[in-house]
């Protein structure tokens, strides 16, 4: 009937057409992509025609009756899809190309093993078992990983879009459902396959639909705001705006055991505590050219941010002249770390100091020998 070559080129053509339609719908700048894809359609169609007309240009060997043992194969089609994605990716995004390459490699290896196994003997059920023995150990883990990845991705979309309280409830419900399903499978080992399969499909559909809905509705408000404020980059040290930060991440053991000093803001004054020195200090010595962690502890009512002025001219109107790095707003009784890496010695022309944002007269001199 349809020759292998025909299937392959037909796949390429159909997918290219689909790609063209999708591209036309979603991208404005299409000149190059349009030409490339149209070219692919033309070539694919031509080659598909030739392949069909000549039965792949082969005459079958009458002695070896392989037609009987060959099965229907979807790999030529999948290979075609891979090629289309690779080409499409070249003009859109490298991720698409990468996905295409993955599909292409998977399809080609499947195709290769299948073609090989079909020539193993004239017994098609034996050939099938040969194929299974070779490929199942790879297919199952890969498919399982992909499946898990999809589940995790979808679930994370859901959790990012609902608010925190709903998230907790959802998590409990999801856990309970998994437990119920597991208990059901365990209690009824002889359950009909179709029932089990339906449960799994239902679960997958639920997560998939939820995930898509979550992705469409976007991340919840506070996450979007926090990202817009730039909290995760410590970018801004000026007037206070921040509302959200992750306190937990600052309280790791490794950080505490590697701190150069603890800077405390108490009763409106800044103090430095250095391990080994009993008295509280008003200067902090920081080794040059080496990242050094300091811990900022706020013991004054309210929220404060510690800023390190690391050279440059301090200019109220144009902040770009001063190098500053800072903690986020730290609540009363809370702590946060700040990493200083100062490449140049301090001197009369370049002084470094720590201060509380908004109360710049409270300073701790930083000396770099």
């Amino acid at each position, binding site marked *: 009937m349809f020759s292998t070559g025909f299937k392959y080129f037909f796949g390429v053509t159909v997918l290219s057409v689909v790609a063209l339609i999708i591209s036309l719908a979603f991208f404005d700048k299409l000149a190059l992509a349009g030409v490339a894809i149209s070219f692919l359609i033309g070539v694919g169609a031509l080659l598909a025609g030739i392949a069909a007309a000549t039965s792949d240009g082969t005459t079958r060997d009458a002695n070896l009756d392989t037609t009987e043992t060959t099965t229907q194969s979807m790999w030529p089609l999948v290979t075609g899809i891979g090629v289309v994605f690779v080409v499409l990716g070249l003009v859109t995004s490298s991720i698409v190309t990468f996905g295409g390459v993955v599909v292409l490699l998977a399809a080609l290896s499947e195709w290769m093993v299948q073609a090989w196994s079909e020539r193993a003997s004239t017994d098609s059920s034996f050939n099938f078992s040969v194929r299974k023995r070779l490929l199942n150990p790879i297919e199952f883990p890969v498919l399982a990983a992909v499946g898990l990845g999809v589940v995790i991705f979808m679930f994370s979309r859901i959790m990012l879009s609902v608010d925190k309280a709903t998230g907790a409830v959802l998590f409990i419900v999801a856990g309970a459902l998994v437990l119920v399903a597991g208990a059901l499978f365990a209690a009824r080992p002889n359950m009909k396959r179709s029932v089990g399969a339906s449960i799994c499909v239902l679960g997958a559909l639920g997560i998939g639909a939820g995930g898509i809905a979550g992705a469409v509705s976007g991340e919840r408000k506070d996450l979007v705001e926090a990202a817009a404020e730039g909290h995760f980059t410590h970018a801004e040290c000026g007037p206070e705006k921040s509302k959200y930060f992750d306190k937990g991440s600052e309280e790791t053991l*490794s950080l505490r*055991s*590697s*701190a*150069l000093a603890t800077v405390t803001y108490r009763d409106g004054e800044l103090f430095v505590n*250095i*391990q*080994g*020195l009993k008295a509280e*200090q008003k*200067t*902090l*010595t920081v*080794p*040059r*050219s*080496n*990242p*050094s962690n300091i811990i900022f502890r706020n013991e004054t009512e309210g929220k404060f941010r510690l800023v390190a002025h690391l050279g440059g001219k301090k200019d109220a109107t144009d902040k770009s002249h001063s190098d500053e790095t800072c903690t986020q707003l730290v609540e009363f009784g809370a702590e946060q770390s700040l990493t200083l890496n100062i*490449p*140049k*010695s301090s*001197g*009369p*022309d*370049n002084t470094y100091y720590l201060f509380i944002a908004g109360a710049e007269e409270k300073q701790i001199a930083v*000396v770099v*020998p």
Partner: protein
Amino acid sequence: MLNKRRFAIVSSIGISALLTGCATNAPQDTWQPKGPNSKLIDDLQQPVFAVAGVIGLIVAVAVTYTIIKYRDRGQPIPEQIHGKPALEITLTIIPALILAVVAVFTFGAIFKLAKTDDTEMIINVTGQQWWWEYDYPVQNEYGITQPIITSGQLVMPVGTKVLLRETSRDVIHSYWIPALNGKRDAVPGRVHTLRLEADEPGIYAGQCTEFCGLSHANMRMEAVALSKEDFAKWVANQQAPYVSPAAGTLAKQGEEVFLNQCVRCHQVNGLTRADGTPAIAAPDENVWSGAAPNLSYFMTRNTFAGAMFDLLSKQCRDEVWNAPSDKIGAKYLEGVTEDCLNQKDLRAWLRNAPEVKPMYANPENLAVSNGKYRGMPYLALSEDDISKLVAYLITLK
């Protein structure tokens, strides 16, 4: 015949190994503690070694006896039994008890060595390929009102509980002055503490004990313990203002060469350019670790390049090292005088540093380190410039 020769070889190896224990000039001998922390370790290792020695002896004698007594003389193989539970249990319990006793004392010592709350003075110690930097944070009770920075030789007061706060700028190094305490790794991004205390004034040698690349073997250090008065003098001198050489001298020309060639890596506190602006070194732009030794008071130290070379001539060095403990401080504080300067090694260093100390400083092979040197590069200085530089360096004290 063959047996005799083999016996001779084995026994001569054994005897020479034994004889190395008699070396008198062994500055890094772990059996000669010179401070409370190393004494703590010594008090632990002496009895453990004794016990282990006795047990080792018993085992060796028993094995030898058995080998000789029951050697194969063609007698029939004795009856094979599975064993004697009572004996086996006893022989399991006894070593377990011995180890348990050792463990109790070991844990005690470990916790004592980890104490930091009785510290009297702190010094930041930073390792990099292949030298150690020391900086002394401001500590007014010792007269340290400006941070002090030095390299190679750690200077500390005797009878003072000093806490080293170690870290590294590139790879893992390990700080070890055997006479004063055990080893402690210096790990990038972490601060590890090590207690040091010396009973007597003296110079205590050590070396990096974590393989750190090409010149690991040349990464040495010395701890110089000074009496409290001598230490105060040292501190005062390390904060003395910079004095530029008089105009017209060779040293003044050396300062110019230094500004042109060396200041991009080496800081000399107080040094200014011709236009009066302070010369701030930029080792972060030139050296992979981001640091090069601060040379402000270079001639107050006795060694250079990771304590690999002596700044003092052989004779002057011996005078310091062999000085009795009450004189050594005064000798050390003299620093390097013109007569005592080890011109040969210092000139060789300035002429071509990578030739005398292996370093990754070939400009053609710096792709892996973003064009930055690991070590001091060859600077193609003329002999003239070298003389000027030496004349200038000798003023830095």
